[in-house]
């Protein structure tokens, strides 16, 4: 008990007495606060609470002082553990309370007496506050561990506490702010009664387009689009999956590439390419106009444009999901059907297809959620077709900023995605007919009947060709001067974006460099953090048992179902004011990436960790290693591929993300995607496309580099082991060693 709590006590005092408690105006890392140490708002809390008369900062310090006798006492007892929890808990709660109360309720009786004479505002929490609060948090968790909870493991309980606190502050707290805002009236007061009529107003839910008189509300538009996209991507994905798994199609590797491409494509790029093809001066439009004299229209800007873009964007995801589903159908079932005299079509219709039903539903819901959350394509192609995600954006940045409307729209969007998410988890997730068992199934999948095969080839192959053309347009378009008007070859776009001047040393003169470097550095910082948080969460979920584990899992997976626009809105609403004031910083971008992409790390980690026998960690622990050492020496080395996947994915997602960051970027910290969106809005398509191409290439190289870096480490290990005995494989299986025999 002494070692752990003593360490956190020192950390706590360090944060309380030496670091600036509040945010420092020109950034903590400028260290300007050191030169005027202890003066003004940059002073540590110890100075603020005593010399500067801000007694509401005292509880944190007092509780640190009060824990000293407990920390120094020998041996752990239940009573001391409780005392530690109570004291540190009081300090933590009081400190959080003063932060929120001084901001929101300066007249509240609890805090008002302390405020006499002092300014009733204070800056947001800074480094000192963060360090102190984290130290207090870990004192609490250590106390809980000494009560024998969480297998009495201070590391595990601390990790649970940390992740709960992080998810609470950076997922639930912002969402709650959206809810609060939705009840706010224009005059700043709050009313419950106003919410219902505003939420269900015909502005949002109008069905007029269905009866042919005007346009529908954005919520209805979103649902219509999502339903169409979910259905379309599932059907196309199924065709691809059948071609991939049930035919002898020769270019399967190329099809596989299709599944990777959308991951590294910024979300609006497809929209841009479609404009180049079908816009008013698009290649296809021109061609059709020349050949048939058809009128050039702007049909691409609207429902059909968004639909086409979303089909292109999300079909690969359905493909990926459905490969697993189609392969999961046990061949013996199909063979059984055939021995019962069913022909290939009957087998497909009556056996294979029904077995795939849950998988198809799953794929539909995924497409549905993706379409609802999609922001880039509607933004580029939306025209007059309003969907929720873009309406939220315009309610924040439009001519008439209306945060309350944005909040209500966000709640509408959130309830739709959460509803679909809930259905997916409750109804589809649990139900599965896939018949993959431990037993080897040596049967052969039935051939497709000629009609089905023709249908699959007939849809999948043209679509694949179309996708290839669309991506070709992106590269091609970046070298064309002014699409549709001056089709001459040029490098101008690249030069404008990425020119470098070498005359006086290196000067990055291109307009894109700023956002490019910001994007790279923020993604590089965010990726390992995301992987760390995601895999830690997975470790807790797979390896530890604790009270409230289900709620914990739900909370950590929740951000998966929250559309980026909602996250963006919630972050500017929550983190624009003290005590946690982060807007305009680079930190908020890092945080938004970490918590948006964390669920993927969690899923990957869960899958990988379930493959590692639990008794490996238990063996390590009974050998005297603590949980942290176990994670470092046993679990992490065995998690190599999962870590690579989590790292790659979070890096790439951070680069391509647009929906959340577009709310959070600032002049100082502009991201590539929001920069490109800005160019598109200005009509500078060439520049936008050139930049997108560079981004795609950047991500491809990053993926390859990561593969190389982590791949090589494993090779080196093998070189060292030149054993004469036949090496079956380096890690024959992560199952219990005895079973490999």
């Amino acid at each position: 008990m002494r070692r752990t709590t003593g360490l956190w006590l020192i950390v706590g005092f360090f944060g309380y007495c030496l670091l600036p408690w509040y945010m420092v105006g020109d950034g903590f890392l400028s260290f300007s606060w050191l030169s005027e140490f202890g003066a003004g708002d940059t002073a540590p809390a110890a100075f603020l609470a005593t010399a500067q008369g801000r007694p509401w900062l005292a509880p944190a310090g007092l509780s640190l002082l009060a824990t000293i006798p407990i920390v120094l006492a020998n041996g752990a007892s239940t009573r001391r553990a409780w005392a530690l929890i109570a004291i540190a808990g009081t300090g933590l709660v009081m400190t959080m309370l003063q932060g929120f109360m001084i901001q929101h309720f300066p007249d509240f009786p609890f805090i008002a007496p302390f405020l006499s004479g002092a300014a009733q505002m204070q800056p947001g929490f800074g480094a000192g506050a963060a360090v102190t609060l984290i130290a207090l948090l870990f004192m609490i968790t250590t106390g809980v561990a000494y009560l024998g909870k969480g297998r009495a493991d201070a590391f595990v309980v601390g990790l649970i506490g940390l992740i709960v606190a992080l998810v609470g502050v950076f997922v639930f707290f912002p969402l709650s702010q959206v809810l609060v805002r939705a009840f706010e009236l224009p005059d700043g007061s709050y009313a419950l009664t106003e919410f219902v009529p505003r939420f269900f107003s015909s502005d949002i839910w109008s069905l007029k387009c269905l009866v042919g008189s005007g346009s529908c509300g954005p919520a209805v538009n979103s649902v219509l689009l999502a339903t169409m996209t979910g259905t379309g991507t599932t059907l196309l994905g199924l065709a691809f999956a059948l071609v991939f798994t049930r035919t002898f199609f020769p270019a399967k590797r190329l099809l596989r590439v299709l599944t990777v491409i959308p991951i590294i494509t910024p979300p609006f790029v497809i929209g841009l390419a479609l404009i180049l093809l079908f816009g008013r001066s698009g290649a296809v439009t021109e061609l059709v106009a020349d050949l048939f004299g058809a009128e050039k229209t702007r049909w691409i800007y609207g429902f059909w444009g968004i639909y086409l873009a979303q089909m292109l964007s999300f079909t690969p995801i359905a493909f990926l999901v459905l490969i697993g589903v189609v392969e999961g159908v046990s061949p013996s079932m199909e063979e059984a059907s055939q021995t019962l005299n069913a022909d290939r079509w009957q087998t497909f219709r009556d056996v294979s297809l029904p077995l795939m039903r849950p998988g198809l539903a799953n794929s539909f819901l995924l497409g549905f959620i993706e379409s609802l959350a999609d922001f880039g394509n509607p933004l580029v192609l939306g025209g007059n077709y309003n969907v929720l995600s873009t309406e939220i954006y315009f309610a924040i940045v439009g001519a008439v900023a209306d945060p309350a409307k944005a909040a209500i729209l966000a709640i509408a969007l959130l309830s739709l995605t959460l509803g679909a998410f809930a259905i997916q988890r409750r109804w589809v997730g649990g139900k599965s007919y896939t018949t993959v068992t431990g037993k080897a199934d040596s049967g052969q999948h039935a051939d497709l009947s000629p009609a089905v095969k023709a249908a699959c080839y007939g849809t999948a192959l043209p679509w694949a060709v179309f996708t290839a053309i669309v991506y070709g347009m992106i590269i091609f378009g970046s070298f064309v001067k002014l699409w549709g008007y001056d089709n001459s070859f040029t490098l101008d776009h690249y030069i404008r974006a990425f020119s470098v001047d070498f005359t006086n040393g290196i000067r990055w003169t291109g307009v894109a460099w700023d956002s490019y470097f910001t994007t790279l550095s923020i993604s590089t910082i965010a990726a390992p953090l995301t992987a760390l948080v995601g895999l830690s969460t997975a470790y807790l979920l797979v390896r530890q048992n604790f009270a409230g584990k289900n709620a914990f899992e739900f909370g950590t997976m929740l951000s998966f179902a929250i559309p980026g626009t909602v996250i963006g809105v919630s972050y500017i609403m929550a983190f624009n004011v003290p005590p946690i004031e982060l807007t305009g910083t680079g930190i908020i971008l890092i945080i938004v990436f970490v918590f948006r992409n964390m669920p993927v790390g969690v899923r990957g980690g869960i899958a990988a960790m379930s493959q590692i026998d639990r008794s490996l960690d238990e063996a390590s622990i009974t050998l005297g290693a603590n949980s942290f050492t176990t994670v470092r020496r046993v679990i992490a080395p065995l998690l190599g591929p999962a870590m690579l996947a989590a790292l790659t994915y979070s890096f790439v997602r951070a680069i391509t993300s647009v929906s959340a960051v577009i709310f959070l970027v600032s002049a100082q910290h502009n991201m590539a995607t929001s920069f490109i969106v800005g160019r598109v809005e200005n009509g500078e398509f060439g520049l936008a496309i050139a930049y997108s191409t560079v981004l795609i290439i950047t991500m491809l190289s990053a993926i390859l580099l990561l593969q190389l870096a982590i791949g090589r480490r494993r090779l080196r290990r093998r070189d060292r082991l030149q054993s004469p005995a036949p090496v079956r494989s380096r890690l024959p299986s992560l199952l219990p060693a005895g079973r490999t025999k």
Partner: protein
Amino acid sequence: MNASEKAGSIRFENVIKNYGQVTAVKDLSLDLEPGKLITLLGPSGCGKTTTLRLIAGLEMASAGSIFVGGKDVTNLTATYRNVSMVFQSYALFPHMSVFENVSYGLKVSAVPSAETRERAQDALAMVGLAGFGERLPSELSGGQQQRVAVARAIVLEPEVLLLDEPLSNLDAKLRRSVREDIRAIQQKLGITVVYVTHDQEEAMAVSDQIIVMRNAGIEQIGSPRDLYLQPVSAFIADFIGDANVVDCDISDVKDGIAEIQFGSASYRIAIEGEIPTQSRLVIRPETIRLSSYSESCRISGEVGYAAYLGNQVQYTIHTELTDLFVIDNRMDGYFPIGSRVSLDLDDSRLCLVEV
């Protein structure tokens, strides 16, 4: 090595372990002497592995106290308990060599590297794997992997060594030699060993003391001999060896002798203390002597089934009261199915158990 100093005693005081609504261990109290090999024996789901994991600190007691070597470890995590464990699956780290596996515990305990090397080599030598240090676990046979797991556990010189079904992944021939090795190592190091198994023969073969568990509690504690000769319940009688457990009437109890009626025959059985009025009679199948039918016999029956196994013949005999399972290992006669036989029971080898 100095044996008795290192060995730790184990004491449970009213330990309870719940998983939600399920009780895995209920109100368990026990006191185990240091330096002994103790087996936790019982059918699957009886709580024996949970008990082992409670000693290791891999599970925390829901209530009660646990002492290892006289020290209260109830709220101490596994890392800080002086207890090592050999897992059923061996749990060798697949990314480390045999030597790295064995030295892992010393390394994380910050033992100097020269000492680490020496002690790991000693431990490997003790299990007969000197020279295998550079191999990966995947390059060893199942028996060798098992011995690496033992070496990895004993290198830390724990107060208590825990073995969770260590032989279950080995083939039958290997089991006997490995269990002898384990017994030899335990005797040599003089440490306390707690051994979980569901195989009663294995338990009888290695243990100083057997704890038979059933339904999350202790059914009986005793030496292998006690358990066989003095079972306290029909469950123990049936679980340890084979037994016919039959109804009987107690006609008289005096001077430590109970007189019981089994059918028309009566037998006199030595007993200790009080016996419950509702008792059943335990007849071990190998204590029943079969002979050709004679009028004067006390019990007679007809052979319903006979199985010739080479070193013994197993019979099922229909008697007027019940069917009896009989093992005849004298091999001096063979009674075909349908023949009438006489059965002789040896008073001194009968015992009574609670209903």
